[in-house]
Each structure stands twice: as structure tokens, then as C-alpha cells.
């Protein structure tokens, strides 16, 4: 599994990151994976899907699933109001929306700002934590969003769902 290798070697490259807030934690994802940021619209529920999959929306004619990362990581309160933000991602040739508490910034990080993530029991599988970055007084958790979105945990694709069942 290439994504595990990537994580274990701690090979996250410096670059620009979109940072967003989940509860009190700040996360960063590769800006190149982000297609757009939009408000939270009414979603169409998918029955029998896990709670963190809010449903699907119509994004200019394509059906896009919406994942609430707050529910998935069990951080913060899953409130849906005018300030709730959806980040539309383009990962592995798929379009997926993730709900977060708010988007804060786009940051350029240099390689020496990024530290490897230690092993710890977190809500997020450490496989998908590619590093921690210190920015002024804040700590940024860098996510391998592509790996996370195609993982069996989220079961967003048929292949991933099968993998999760097999595991």
C-alpha cells in the first residue's frame, strides 16, 4: 500500500496547504486536491449509510457525496448553519465533499516546518497523518486526504467498501 509507505517514511513534501478547523483542532490538506469551497446545502440522505456520510448533493450536474469529518473524527459539534463549510475535493479521479467547521487559510509550509507525526491513539488513523507543522503558536495536523478518502474506513467507493468488509 503506497499510502502507508508514504506515511511511514514521513515523506510529506512542502507546499501549499489549505487549513481548516474541526472543533478546536486545525488541519491542513494539500491545496492541489481542493476543487472549491462552498456553503452547506441541503443534502439528499442515503438510507443505511454511516452517520458521517451526510448524503449526496447536486454539484452542477454531478452527484457528489458529502462526508462530515467532524462526525468521522468525533470532534466538535456537528452543527449545520450558514457558516458550515464544505470543501469539495478532487481525489483519485473522484469528487467528494467534506464538511468542516471552517476554513481558515492557505499556507505555504517549508520542509523544516513539518515534523513527522508520532504514533498515538487518535480518532484519525495515524496512517493518514502525514505530519505535524508548527505555525507560530499553532499546531497544524497534516492529512493525507487522498488516502483517507479512498480508505476502507470511509467506504466511499465500492473497492474501499469491499476492502473494509474483507478486513
Amino acid at each position, binding site marked *: 500500500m503506497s499510502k502507508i509507505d508514504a506515511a511511514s517514511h514521513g515523506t510529506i513534501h512542502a507546499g501549499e496547504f489549505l487549513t481548516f478547523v474541526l472543533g478546536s483542532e486545525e488541519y491542513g490538506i494539500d491545496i492541489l486536491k481542493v476543487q472549491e469551497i462552498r456553503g452547506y446545502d441541503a443534502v439528499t440522505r*442515503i*438510507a443505511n449509510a454511516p452517520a458521517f456520510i451526510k448524503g449526496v448533493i447536486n454539484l452542477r450536474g454531478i*452527484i457528489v457525496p458529502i462526508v462530515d469529518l467532524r462526525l468521522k473524527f468525533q470532534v466538535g459539534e456537528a452543527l449545520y448553519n450558514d457558516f458550515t463549510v464544505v470543501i469539495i475535493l478532487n481525489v483519485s479521479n473522484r469528487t467528494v465533499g467534506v464538511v468542516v467547521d471552517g476554513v481558515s487559510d492557505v499556507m505555504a509550509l517549508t520542509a523544516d516546518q513539518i515534523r513527522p507525526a508520532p504514533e498515538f491513539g487518535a480518532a484519525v488513523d495515524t496512517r493518514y497523518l502525514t505530519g505535524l507543522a508548527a505555525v507560530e503558536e499553532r499546531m497544524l495536523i497534516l492529512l493525507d486526504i487522498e488516502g483517507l478518502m479512498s480508505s476502507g474506513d470511509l467506504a466511499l467507493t465500492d473497492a474501499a467498501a469491499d476492502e473494509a468488509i474483507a478486513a
Partner: protein
Amino acid sequence: MSNTGQSGGSSSIDMSQFYQVFFEEAEEHLSNMESLLLSIDPAEASGEELNAIFRAAHSIKGGSGTFGFNDMTEVTHILESLLDRVRKNEMILTTEMVDALLASGDVLKAQLARHRGQGGEPPDASGVCERVKSLMNAGGAKASAPAKTASSSQHAAERDLEIRFPEPAADVDAAAVQDLYDTIGQLGAMTGEIESKDGQRSFQYRTRKSDKELRNLFAFVCDTQAVEIIDPQRAKAEDEAGFGLFGDAEPAKDDSFGFFDELPALPSATTVKDDSFGFFGDDAPGLPASVKSAAAPAADPSIGRRATDHAAADARSGRRETDKNVAAAQDTSIRVSVEKVDQLINQVGELVITQAMLAQAVSKLDPLLFQQMLSGMADLERNTRDLQESVMSIRMLPIGFVFKRFPRMVRDLAGKLNKQVQLLTEGEGTELDKGLIEKIADPLNHLIRNSVDHGIEMPDARVAAGKPAQGTVTLRASHQGGSILIEVVDDGKGLDREKILAKGRERGLPVSDSMSDGEVWGLIFEAGFSTADKVTDISGRGVGMDVVKRNIAELGGTVEIESATGHGTRMKVRLPLTLAIIDGMSVAVGEDVYIIPLATVVESLQAGSRAVRSVAGGGFVVEIRDEYLPVISLHDLFPNDTAAKNESKEGIMLVVESEGVKNAFLVDELLGQQQVVVKSLESNYRRVPGVSGATIMGDGRVALILDVPTLVRMSRH
């Protein structure tokens, strides 16, 4: 004309970018050649048909030579030599020749597939080549008799002709006319005086020269096409052979294939630099079309002239001319990738939704104040609807694309089984969605194989039963309402009720003698069911009909059988027109909206709670007109955490039928009926059990489309 020796592959220009064009064109020519060969009647093959086959072979040869596919060039060269002799009436077309030509067509197909990188064993071209060559040599002996009419043969017999040509115009030099008479005198013998009447001159003439050569003599005096060369003997031969010969088709050939002669020569030309790319880029893909269109008008005048000579042939050649026009019209098409079309369809779908949203917003305006805007909206609505229809029609293809592969299959199959079978096709122009076209071929293939193998009897058995020795399988397509009906009809022995029942008992299926015919025929769709006495490599293993039924069901279609013992069988396949749009019923379940495909809905009714009864085990049934149907509550299948559960079993009962079983879906409300554009959930998400897709409603929200058969299965667990 020969360009066998040239190999464009060695040129400095990278030809690989044109390979795709060649592959597609060659494939088209091959399938064209095959269908022509299948339709040709060796006994009365017309020059036009032979020329068309020759042209196809020649085009492939030209193309493969250009691109350096020498194996294909070799085979086509031999093919072409044989065809050329047949075409020039030096040989007579025989059934063996047609078989050999078809076989070499297969070899070419295999070679083409290999060049395309589709793998496969290298086909054994030498066997086929030998076969064609030996036919050519064998035919050479026979050729002596018809050779006297061969126009371009060096040793042509002397002919008595009457030559008519228009009175030379006033500006034609008298010396030129005198030269003409002198030359004519040298090349043959004028057997009479030159008569001049009605603006025409005519004379009797005896010569060994071909029509074409004679015609060319007149080039300085009048239009060579206006020269009539009347051969009383040939006219007689043609009357007997029924429009057989085509001595002077050369103009057509030369006009069309001039292009090809130039093309291979180009890469080797020293002056070719950057601008040669421009030539190739512009002209090469368009070339075959121009060849065809050049060939068509060039061939037509000769047909017209002949028709005046032979009144009997008039009707026939007239029909051919219209056929030709149809073919020419089809050539004015462009190749577009399916993705582009789908993208267009998606974008138009978006436009329709946007338009619906606008219409909703505008409907609240005061019609007096915003009259112009409202009428503009009405126009917009009509235009978007027209646009959507036109765009959808791009994906529609005539079903003839599928049908045209079957004549060959039936021919081969009948040959293998020693049966005589003709395949008739009707309604080839019936259009349906491209996605369906691709998927319907396999099931149809199975049904036709079944008809030929099991349906049609051996010729002697047919004659004994008072039927013509040749069996007929009819493949018919037609539109019926919102669906397309494809029928496979044979006039064979029909299904054997007793045999099927016996087989059913043997396999432990629940059968009884009181079953209706329809139910009995339905048994053959059971997995592993076969009534064939012996297993052949064609069919009889009992694998097939169940697959056919499943494949058709996957396309949202049904298959029915009608059969009369001794008279034949009719298989009716009913398919939706397209997979991209369905008629749906939108229903509310709690706060959610779902779409149920209208094709599955039988009826809907308001069921009072009294009509619903519980059955031991927790299920419910509803009594509808003395029938107890299982109730499937969509609330249970799609639990809704927000809305209160509909425990009372009140609401709307929607009776749905799937796989022949009726069930009642309990929903809260019927919202309406509409056409919905089916979108895939899987492109960005995954398959959801019980849901076949999603669509976007007029308000821009997504609604899920229910997969009724899966839901019924889910409810049983």
C-alpha cells in the same frame, strides 16, 4: 494502380498518428465488403455490386500499403486480382468464390486486430491466398467463353457495333473530325456509311477495340460520355444475364482511386516538408469519404445510359441509384467520442434544471408587469426542451448496427448444420440508445443461434412437413410506445410442450400438466435447461437462455416467447429506448423523495388500514382485488431517523411488478410523474443497495432512483 511495393512505414513522416484513421476505415470497408458478399447472388451479380466489393478491397490494399501493413496488402492484392477478373467478366462469380472471399475477409479482420494491438494468433493467410489463387486459375479456363465480351481484354473478339455520337459543334475543327474518321478507319472497319440525322451521326463498325478506347477517340470532337456504343450481341447477353456486365466501369474506378495512387507516393517525395503534414492532416481522414462520393456520381451516368438501352433494367438500376444516394447520405457523418456526447448531454441536463429553477422563480412575478420576461421564459423552455431532445438523439443509433453482424453468423451456422436458412431483417432503422445497442448484441446472438439450431428443421424434414426446404429467421425491430420491440421469429418446428415439461420434471422443477403455454415456455429460461437431444458446439448445453433473460432484465427489458408446434417460435424482446432517461414516479417517504421507475408500477391505491393484515412472522399483506400482496414499507427499508415511523400502514400502496412478482410498496405520498435523467451514484460514491442511480429534480435537489427487484429481494431477508 498497383502500389503493393510501396511501404509508407519506412518514410520519414511518423505515420502512427494516422493509423487510427486507417484502422477505422479498414474496418468499415471490411464490414462493407462482407455485407456486400452476403447479399450478392452469384448467379446475377451486378457490375455495381462487384465494383463496390472491388473498391472495398482496393481501398484496404491502398491503405495497408501506405501504412506498411504488408500482410494485409498481400491478401488484398490477391483478392483484388480475383475480383478484378470477375468484375471485368473474365470469370464468373461462384458460390465457392464468395466463400473464399468471406474467409479472406476474416483473415484480414484478424490481421487488422493484430495491428491494432488486440493480440490473437497470427492468422494463416497462406491457406486463404492459395484458395483464392486456385479459384482464379480454375476460373481462367472457364473464362474463355465470356471473354469475348470482356471489354479491355487484349485478345477480344471482333465485334459488330453501332456507334452514335452527337453532331460535332460548329466550333470543332473540321480537320479534327477528319482525323477521327481516319483513326476509326485504322482501328477497325466501317461497315456502312456515316448517317446523320436528328443532330446525331451514326455508323456501323467492326473492331477488336474496347468501348473505352473507342470512346477516347472522340475526345477532340465531342463529349466522350455522349458517345453511344451499341453492341447488339452484348445487349442480348445482358438481357439473359439480367444486367450482368459492366464493361465500361473504368471511368468510375479511375476517378475514385486516383486519390490513393497519389497518397502513398507522397511520403517519398523529396519536397515533402512541414506542409505535407498539413496535407495529410486535412486530407487523409476525409479521403475515403471523397473516394466514395467521387465514385458514386461517376458510376451513375453509366447506369443511366444503360437504363435507356434496356428498358427492363430500368426499375432495377433506379432502385440501385436510390440505394446509392442513401449510402452517400450516410457518409456525411463525423466521428465523435462518446465522452463528448455524454458531456453534452450532461450540460444540457444542467441547462434544463437551471431553466426549471428560473421558471419557478419567475412564476411569482406579476404577468402584467413582466410580460416580456415571461414570454421569454416560455421560449426558453421550449428551446431547452428541443435542445435536449436533439442532444439525446445523438446517442441514438439505428439497430441495423447490431443486425448487420447476424447474416454472416446465420450463414456460417446454417452451413455447419447442413440447414438452409435465410435471415430477413426488418426495421433496421429503428433507433435506440448506443449503450443498449452494445449490450443487446449478445442476447440477440443467442436467440438467433437457438432459432437456427433448435427451431429450423433439416431441409428434408421441412419438405416432409410441407414447408419450403429453406427455413426463414426474421429479425424485426419496431417502436412500441416508449419501448422498442425486437422479435426473433423462425418458421421452424416450434417448442415441444411435452418435452419441456418432461425435462422440467426431470430437473425437479415445480411443473404440472395444467400449466399455461406461457408458463411452460418460461421454463426454458431456467438455468441449465436444455431440451436438445445432443450437445453441439453451437448450443444445447443449457447455458444461454437464463443468461439471455438476465442480460435483458439488466437492461430494463423483458423477453417473452410465443410458439406453435410445427409452425415456429417468436421471441419478443422489449427494451426501454434509452438508459439515460426513464419515466419515474416520485414518491415521498418521510422527508425523503424517491423515484420509482414507472415501468415497474402497476397501479397505486389508497389502502385503508383495514385492508392490511399481519402475517405470522411480522410481515404484512394487503388485499387488492382478491389478491394478497406482500407489503414492503419503504420506511422500513430506508429508515428515516427524523420523521415518525408510519406504523399505521396508512398511506399509498404502490403495486409494483418485478420479475413477474407483484408487491405493494407502502409510501407516504405520490408526488408526481416525470421523466428523469439517470445519473450514476457510483462515479463519485459507491453502489447503494436498492438504489439504481440518482437524478436531479426541478428544484436542484438530488433524488435517488429505486431498484425495485433488489428492494423486493431485500425485503425478504
